[in-house]
């Protein structure tokens, strides 16, 4: 890490490769589709390169990197929401799917068959982000609190509340069929 901060190209390359998969996983779950996740992951990696000089060692590098990556992902997604779409729904099945609004009542969305992307999209950022940082980032509550700049008790209650909502949305009757798709578990 110190070598990368000092301008060592090889060290930076190793650092980026080491963290890419987990940043991808976090951005993928926050974005809900591959295309937006890819752009968000790229933004996050560029930001880590540009801002590595600001890492002061007071937290773990992973915590810092995920803070930067999470903010980059959310920024990218906000920008996309503001931007008029230039894709037709038929171009990409992922974009063609209609996700429930974050603020939609549970009764409205629960009647549909939801997969995990749609269920996460039904949560607002304040619940979705700590869950993703916990289950994919592998951070404990104190680290998530540092990343999001909120108290650890708030992290705990938001994760609990978000999971309860997800369990409701993904209830036994709405579970997606298991697939053979490989996964990227931390």
């Amino acid at each position, binding site marked *: 890490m110190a070598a990368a*901060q000092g*301008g060592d*190209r090889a060290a*930076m*390359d190793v650092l*980026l490769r080491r963290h*890419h*998969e987990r940043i*991808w996983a976090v951005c*993928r*779950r926050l974005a809900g589709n*591959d295309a937006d996740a*890819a752009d968000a*992951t*790229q933004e996050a*990696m*560029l*930001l*880590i*390169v*540009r*801002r590595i*000089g*600001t890492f002061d060692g007071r937290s773990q590098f992973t915590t810092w990197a995920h803070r*930067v990556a999470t*903010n*980059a992902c959310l*920024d990218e997604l*906000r*920008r996309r929401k*503001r*931007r008029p779409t230039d894709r037709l729904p038929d171009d990409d099945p992922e974009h063609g799917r209609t996700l429930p609004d974050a603020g939609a009542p549970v009764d409205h969305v629960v009647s549909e068959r939801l997969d*995990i992307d749609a269920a*996460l999209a039904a949560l607002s950022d*304040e619940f979705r982000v700590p*869950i*993703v940082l*916990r*289950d*994919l980032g592998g951070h*404990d*509550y104190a680290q998530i609190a540092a990343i999001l700049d909120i108290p650890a*008790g*708030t992290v705990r*209650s*938001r*994760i*609990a*509340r978000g*999971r*309860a909502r*997800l*369990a409701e949305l*993904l209830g036994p009757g709405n579970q997606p069929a298991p697939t053979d*798709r*490989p*996964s*990227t*578990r*931390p």
Partner: protein
Amino acid sequence: MTDSPSPADPGPVDPDVELASAHLDDEAGADERARVEDPVVAAHLAAFGRVADQVRDVPPPPAGLLDDQVARAMASFDDEARVVPIGRTAGATPWWQRIPLGAVAAALIVVALVGIASLGGFGGDDEDTAATAFDSTDDSAGDSGDDSAAGGAQAPMADAMEESATLETEAGLAPDRARFDSYDDLVASLQDELARPTAATGGQAGDPDDTAGEERSAGDGEGVTDPCDAVAVLDVDPATVVLVRAAVVASDDVTVVVHDADDGRRLAAVDDATCTVVLDRLL
């Protein structure tokens, strides 16, 4: 250990739900663990375990994405290494050690000239003495183009201030940042400022038919220390930008951008340390 009720968090979370979730994450206290055997808590625990499994079951990145993205990031790394940083570079040498002495001397001379100009030819205009916290050197630089409204006596001062702002930027000095305890204070200050008729325009700020306003908008932000290029970070059309300012909000250095969007006039702030958006709302 629970949130206060709010529109976002309606009421306290069910203790069984919170315990099951915390236990799943190995964050439950020793006194709480005894309650995990409770059938209701156990049922929540099982359900949350299934949810967590699904959250973790992330599709792998597309083939080649890792190499592509690392290559692009490394190209940026190479560019960064070639470019001498300007403005604030946290973690590097403190700013006061990077100020060339010559530039300090030049800035002091300019400040002295400004003082002389204001004493000799500027008689304490109420509009300026009642300036808001945001009225700093960059304002004067941006407003200096309209002499007919500002009056001839202001021109030397405006020129001097503009020169001062330029010198400060060239020397790597941040212009004085307005300080706010909270974003609410920042919003209130900006609302005041933008609602106030200005001497330069003689009308409401942001009037789309006001060409003087457009000139001011284009000039506003000159001399502002903006290490992240906030307008680019926000991905807004530069033509819609009303103002760009450096500020300190609750000890964080931020660059504030006011711009006109489809849904109205928006206020955004970009954290100068992380180059990320920390505020984006209608003004």
